[in-house]
């Protein structure tokens, strides 16, 4: 994340006291969940650190296709808590050999479904990163399988519990911004043309074949791993499939989980240039700018991202505007939320964010909520259905972009109306021997 993390550090000391996890039922405090992490990169380890900090985690296994990462992660786990997790390069072997009660899934998107389904089959509860699928069908499969198996699934939408998000939603739902007719979600950054980078043989510590897994096997490139997969559509869905899921979820939360009737997206790589992929070199291929318009019953929601131009005259480069009959409400990230009344005689209302730094998240709250949900059997704050809906909207945007036309969405059937070509894009071909998940009905 290249957005300025440092800027808001001064507020973290105060925030940390407010973020103390809610007390979990005293009797169950001793319960230690046998936990496995699949995908031991930057974000996966952020989640695992929070899990360990909550005090009810015994790390039994780690899995990654990068053996260096795996070794480093295992060493850190031992440094933190003394657990000596067993390490695996293949999640199937992990679930075969280990008894796992909680699986954390933080692999690139194209692996989420197969990892999640294997974990559910092994009887584990899931903490899974968003998006919940690389295609809509994968996300549906996780939703159905977890419901059938009665497993708790928390999706990594920590903004569902972030204190300023909670108070901002209350403000909106109490009507202080009036009737909302339009929601604008956005992330903007700076950048220019992307020159191709030379391919190279994968590093000896990386099982590249397994990294690609169900996705096409493309030449290895240092831009992809570590940390670059989001910009490659074989493995992820660009900015809309990343940031977009968070902000779409904020919009859905405010709307009471409504569904759009139609989705239309445009975009491209107008500044970064046409994607390159050949035997010697490649670029990323995710759009450098995109607009996706979601038409709901009583409002429009518009996603927009740009990887060039910067924030411009805007105060913030990321967030969500709710335009209402009483003014404009901005739900931000580190900048908290701000309401600008349309009557200039009224004063601006603002609330600061309360985040865990340096990465600006609220994973501590999300993990505590996850444990409570497992113990109570109630749905967690960012339940799989919530994650699935936000993921679906982001993927419908990508689908419309690929088709170059709008799609009509039948939310009850989760199908695109009268459009076989579009419905074909709800799933993808998997590379053998991997088999696309069956959606139980």
């Amino acid at each position, binding site marked *: 994340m290249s957005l300025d993390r440092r800027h808001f550090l001064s507020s973290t000391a105060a925030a940390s006291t407010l973020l103390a996890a809610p007390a979990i039922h005293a009797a169950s405090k001793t319960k230690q969940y046998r936990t496995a992490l699949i995908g031991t990169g930057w974000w996966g380890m952020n989640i695992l650190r929070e899990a360990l900090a909550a005090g009810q985690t015994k790390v039994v296994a780690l899995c990654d296709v990068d053996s260096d990462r795996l070794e480093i992660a295992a060493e850190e786990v031992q440094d933190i808590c003394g657990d000596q997790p067993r390490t695996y390069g293949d999640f199937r072997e992990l679930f075969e050999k280990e008894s796992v009660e909680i699986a954390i899934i933080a692999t690139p998107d194209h692996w989420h479904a197969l990892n999640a389904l294997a974990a559910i089959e092994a009887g584990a509860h899931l903490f899974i990163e968003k998006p919940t699928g690389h295609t809509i069908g994968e996300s549906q499969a996780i939703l159905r399988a977890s419901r059938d198996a009665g497993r708790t699934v928390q999706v990594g939408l920590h903004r569902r519990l972030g204190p300023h998000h909670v108070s901002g939603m209350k403000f909106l739902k109490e009507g202080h911004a009036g009737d909302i007719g339009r929601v604008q979600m956005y992330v903007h950054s700076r*950048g220019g043309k992307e020159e191709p980078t030379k391919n190279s043989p994968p*590093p000896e510590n990386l099982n590249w074949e397994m990294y690609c897994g169900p996705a096409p096997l493309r030449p290895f490139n240092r831009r992809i791993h*570590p940390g670059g997969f989001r910009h490659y559509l074989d493995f992820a869905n660009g900015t809309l499939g990343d940031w977009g899921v968070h902000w779409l979820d904020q919009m859905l939360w405010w709307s009471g989980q409504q569904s759009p009737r139609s989705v239309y997206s445009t975009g491209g790589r107008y500044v970064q240039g046409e994607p390159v992929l050949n035997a010697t070199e490649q670029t990323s291929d995710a759009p450098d700018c995109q607009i996706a318009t979601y038409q709901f019953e009583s409002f429009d929601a518009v996603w927009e991202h740009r990887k060039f131009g910067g924030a411009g005259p805007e105060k913030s480069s990321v967030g969500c505007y709710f335009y209402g009959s009483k003014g404009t409400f901005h739900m931000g990230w580190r900048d908290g939320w701000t309401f600008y009344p349309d009557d200039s005689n009224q004063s601006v209302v603002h609330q600061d964010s309360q985040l865990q730094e340096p990465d600006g998240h609220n994973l501590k709250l999300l993990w505590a909520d996850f444990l409570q949900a497992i113990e109570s059997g109630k749905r967690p704050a960012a339940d799989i259905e919530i994650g699935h809906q936000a993921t679906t909207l982001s993927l419908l945007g990508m689908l419309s972009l690929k088709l170059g036309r709008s799609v009509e969405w039948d939310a009850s059937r989760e199908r695109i109306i009268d459009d076989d070509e579009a419905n074909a894009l709800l799933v993808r071909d998997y590379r053998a021997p991997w088999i696309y998940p069956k959606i139980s009905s």
Partner: protein
Amino acid sequence: MNVSNDYRCLPVLVFLLGAINLPLMAEDWNRWRGPNGTGMSNETQWTSHWAEAGPPIAWTAEVGIGFSSCVIQGNQMLTIGHANQTDTVVCLDVKDGHSIWKFDYPAPLDDRDFEGGPTSTPTIDDGSVYVLSRVGELYRLDLASGALQWKTPVAEDAQVRLPGWGCSAAPLIAGDRVVLNLGESGVVVDKQDGTLIWKSNDKESGYATPVLIHGPDQTTAVFASSRAYIGVDFDSGKQLWRERWLTSFGCNAADPIVHDGKMFLSSGYNRGAALFEFVDGQPKEVWKNKEMQNQLHSSMLYDGHLYGIDGNMEYEPRLRCMDWSTGNVIWSIDDLHPGGLAMAGGRLLVLTDTGELVIAPATPQGFKELTRGRVLEGKCWTSPVLSGGRVYCRSVAGQVACIDLRQ
């Protein structure tokens, strides 16, 4: 003790003390980590005090985005910056900051997870300037005019891949050779024309600048690879030893510190530090801990103590003093927010990550600020440099401030 006996030794003592305390004027800082490769200047004739109004900023200049540090020879100061798909080597006059020459070469900003721009520091040697771009091209320029003498796509010539964030090591000149941290354990070219002398395996390098260990029979070059620090025979490039050293992003960026038959290594990302003793030419661990994690900046060894930045730069790093022989932390300053660190004449110069310059004696007794003042705005992650009593500080956005601390 008998005074009359001591009397005879006095002239010798006076001579020795004089030699040690001889004030050092204007020492050129011709390369990354200075002429001795220690990161420390010997200059003592500069002041740590300034008026209430703030540090005496002689001039400022815009050099473009980047992390390249400054090098100084005579009246010339050089660094590299980026704008509009172009890296520019700038040569400024140390007196007033006016531009003496500029040299442009095409380069992507390459702002992967950071602001991008050049990350290596130029090297001045024998009237020439050597510049290694992030995409692994080596340029030699005429120091006086900035004219291109030759360039070579050295990574391509050597058929070695680039590390994830591109080349960031400074070129090291040794005799008639240019030593580069490229490939698994280095690439060496002829400094006259850039022709390849030897190369290493096609594996990722790390980001630290090579260091030479001169032995009685053999010179060893130490390279930070993405997964290890590797010692090679400087003549042939043959690997002599390897110390496995993993970090999350293959980010071995701190230069090894070699002293008294021992070697100190340190990296961030929960790797930590270790001291090794060379036994029969192989490094043998003396101590190892996680108390000094140099993510980007190399520590400095002064008077038996290491001074360095511990922790990942985005996670509130600490300034620390550590005992060289034991690895024990002597002191740790948690709220300084260091962005870069230098030392001159036994005093530490800390550039905070928001652009304040802080000066304090380098002593295990503690970190006692002599003075502090704002010299730059915005994020600063480049080590300041002191040469000729002037301190050169640089922000990521590309402002260079020259603070005149001459006495």
